[in-house]
């Protein structure tokens, strides 16, 4: 049986599934329910500084987009950090940690970008005996207008500065939660590392407007006829998150910096992909908010079964396994030639591959052969773009099949070369370096 126990910057949990700092982790009641359901850890909903608590809007806080059958694909929120008294949260954190010593419990913190504020809150948090802190440099709505959240996360120098303060005033592991609302995720990650961060976690939510009400012309969610950009999350953001995780994992300057992967994790498979790209564990929110805490059971069993099937004994066998396979475009093998192939037994003749190729791509799929509805790839036109695979409603009906070296590529009329060659060596590239002789 695969061992999925997790050790993330020294914080131990029975599995790599944590709940992200968000509404599901706002108070002891929810967190205890999560632990009972089997979650390995939680990052407590972000604490603010001592004083009158934050206020939230009293209208809708969430917006969404849906796929077929109203399956929730993307969620957006304008909720702020915890709106409960700091002392209440701290007491509950302490109590819960005491009762659930085997689970990870990390406190998320967001206070103004001045040293005194951090110096004031850190000992109070440390006193709860929680396992670590996560710096919320990510929230793109509300708090950022007050100079916190993503307003900090978007300035690498501020990240470095605040992390330094934290490392100075606490012995707890410091995880820096990064905002994706930035041009190049490597800069804030490098700054976090420079400041001494133990880890980064990403992504926080993406600035977004989910929809516009076409009767009232208000953005959704609408508060008294007005809306504001919220933070976007859920399955729709996973590809963005995967890329950002990989960028940090493979950046020479941050390589080895532990990453807690966040962004649209909904199934064990999503989690395994984050791990493979270099995340040390994952944090989940939208999936739990959509389906409840029970989903962790599927995640645990699914991950274990997959690892057993593939012979991975521990998470370390999986973490970062895909990272070396992420490269720059310029290093992709241009001598790799693949062609689409349609399995006629599986084909249901919907014709979507044909019309996608015919209207928008390379005119490489038939619609009619000898007067019969028939969809077949014309290899002399097929560039191997994969669009037909993506639009086909039947899994594995269309597959991309690599041409073995030496076979004729009917499109170019040339045999497939057995050697690797990329753009940096290509004759059309004015900057090409001659291949090593």
């Amino acid at each position, binding site marked *: 049986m695969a061992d999925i126990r997790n050790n993330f910057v020294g914080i131990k949990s029975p599995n790599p599934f944590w709940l992200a700092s968000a509404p599901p982790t706002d108070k002891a009641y929810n967190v205890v329910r999560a632990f009972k359901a089997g979650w390995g850890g939680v990052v407590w909903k972000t604490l603010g500084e001592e004083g009158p608590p934050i206020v939230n809007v009293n209208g809708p806080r969430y917006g969404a987009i849906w796929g*077929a*059958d*109203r399956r929730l694909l993307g969620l957006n929120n304008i909720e702020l950090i915890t709106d409960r008294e700091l002392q209440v949260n701290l007491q509950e954190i302490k109590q819960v940690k005491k009762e659930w010593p085997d689970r990870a419990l990390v406190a998320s913190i967001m206070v103004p970008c001045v040293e005194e504020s951090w110096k004031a809150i850190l000992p109070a948090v440390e006193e709860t005996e929680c396992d670590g802190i996560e710096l919320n440099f990510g929230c793109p709505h509300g708090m950022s207008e007050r100079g916190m959240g993503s307003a900090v996360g978007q300035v690498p120098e501020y990240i470095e500065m605040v992390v330094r303060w934290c490392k100075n005033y606490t012995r707890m592991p410091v995880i820096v939660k990064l905002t994706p609302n930035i041009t190049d995720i490597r800069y804030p990650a490098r700054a976090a590392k420079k400041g001494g961060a133990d880890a980064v976690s990403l992504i926080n939510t993406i600035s977004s407007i989910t929809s516009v009400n076409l009767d009232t012309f208000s953005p959704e969610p609408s508060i008294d006829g007005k809306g504001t950009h919220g933070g976007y999350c859920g399955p729709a953001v996973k590809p963005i998150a995967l890329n950002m995780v990989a960028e940090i994992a493979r950046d020479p300057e941050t390589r080895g910096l532990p990453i807690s992967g966040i962004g649209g994790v909904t199934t064990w498979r999503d989690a395994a992909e984050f791990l493979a790209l270099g995340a040390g564990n994952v944090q989940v929110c939208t999936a739990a908010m959509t389906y409840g805490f029970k989903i962790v059971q599927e995640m645990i069993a699914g991950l274990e079964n997959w690892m057993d099937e593939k012979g991975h004994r521990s998470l370390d066998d999986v973490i970062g396994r895909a990272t070396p396979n992420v490269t720059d475009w310029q290093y992709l093998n241009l001598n790799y030639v693949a062609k689409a192939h349609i399995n006629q037994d599986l084909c*249901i*003749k*919907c*014709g*979507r591959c*044909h*019309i996608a190729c015919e209207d928008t791509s390379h005119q490489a799929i038939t*619609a009619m052969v000898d007067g019969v*509805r028939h969809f077949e790839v014309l290899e002399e036109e097929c560039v191997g773009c994969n669009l037909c695979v993506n639009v086909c*409603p*039947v899994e594995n009906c269309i597959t991309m099949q690599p041409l073995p070296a030496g076979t004729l590529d009917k499109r170019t009329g040339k045999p497939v070369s057995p050697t690797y060659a990329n753009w940096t060596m290509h004759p059309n590239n004015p900057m090409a370096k001659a291949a090593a002789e």
Partner: protein
Amino acid sequence: MALSLHKEGIAGGRLSPEQYAENFSDLHPPLDDHEALVEADRCYFCHDAPCMTACPTAIDIPLFIRQIATGNPLGSAKTIFDQNILGGMCARVCPTETLCEEACVRETAEGKPVQIGRLQRYATDVAMGRNKQFYTRAAPTGKRIAVVGAGPAGLACAHRLARYGHEVTILEARPKSGGLNEYGIAAYKSTDDFAQAEVDYVTAIGGITIENGKALGRDYRLSDLVEAYDAVFLGMGLAGVNALRAEGEDCDGVADAVDFIAELRQASDLASLPVGRRVVVIGGGMTAIDVAVQSKLLGAEEVTICYRRGKEQMNASEFEQELAAAKGVVIRHWLQPRRVVADGGKVSAIELEYTTLDGDRLIGTGETITLRADQVFKAIGQSFVPEPLNGASMTVELERGRIKVDAEGRTSMPKVWAGGDCVADAREDLTVSAVAAGRDAGESIHRALTSNGRA
């Protein structure tokens, strides 16, 4: 029990009012908004969609379903009505399982096609419920066209001509319009007087006058119409019913299925409609199923369909056969009627002979079986009755017993077009085929009257 469920002979009031109401409620209840969205989401929006090719009226099915999915049911209805102005009735009565839904790629993929018929009903219900009219008449052309028969073919033809600004008079023999939609469809397929609502919806475009109680050959002659109008469209359907050719078929209790179906549709109180305790239906088509199922729903204890060939040769679709079985109708094959047994002038049994194939020829084996019956329905096909053409059949040429037309619906007689069940063409005898024929003939008439479409 006060009810006469097991009363011998032909009797009414076999069931309670609640049972009648339940038995004759919508066969396929309408989809609600959520169900329609979920179902519409299943459509793959196929290229050159097989469902569309399979539709006799070539409705752009992927487009109308996508319009439902995107919250545009009125746009969806227009897509449907553009091709088929009787899309509402077709949504209810089309044998979709042998047309669009059989061709649906999801049928191939998972044996569960998109429910195109019910989606079509959803969209057309929305539009008709709001009485949304999508078409306005073109400027009057001064051309006048007579349409014989206010059935699906005649209505479709009339609507298309009215759109072009022509003046249409429909002459309908029956007291109500709609043709088989009104008189020939099983009651549970067209509830809430839908056929009349649809006639009103179609004629609301204007320029269409319907004169009921006007029968060709009785009240006017074809030559009168040809003289008085710029063009004539014949869509009078089939008036004749094939005989059993069995001894004793004239006795009491032997009836034409089509008459019974019509009577049922017109009945204001189903309890007043008498039905036998033991009913035998002779035939293998949709009419046989309709009369058998409805007899069962009216409270008949035993209903048996006897068909002279095998299951595969039955004209009734697989779905219809299963529907009948589910309602408790027994379908027996390879039996042909030989003799109706009467007792005191009333049918008491029917003697049937087993059949077999001798090469391609169907022959009786000599072995017989006698089924008790107090009511026998003839549902062995209808035929065209040419006599009302009033001797004009000299010029309106027939083919295989029905009116001969070309691809555009033109008969051999100048100025006269025809379509629907009364013509001999490759189309099946379906409402939707009649609509296509009427619509296409309307286009042809328009072209003929306006020098190729230009007024």
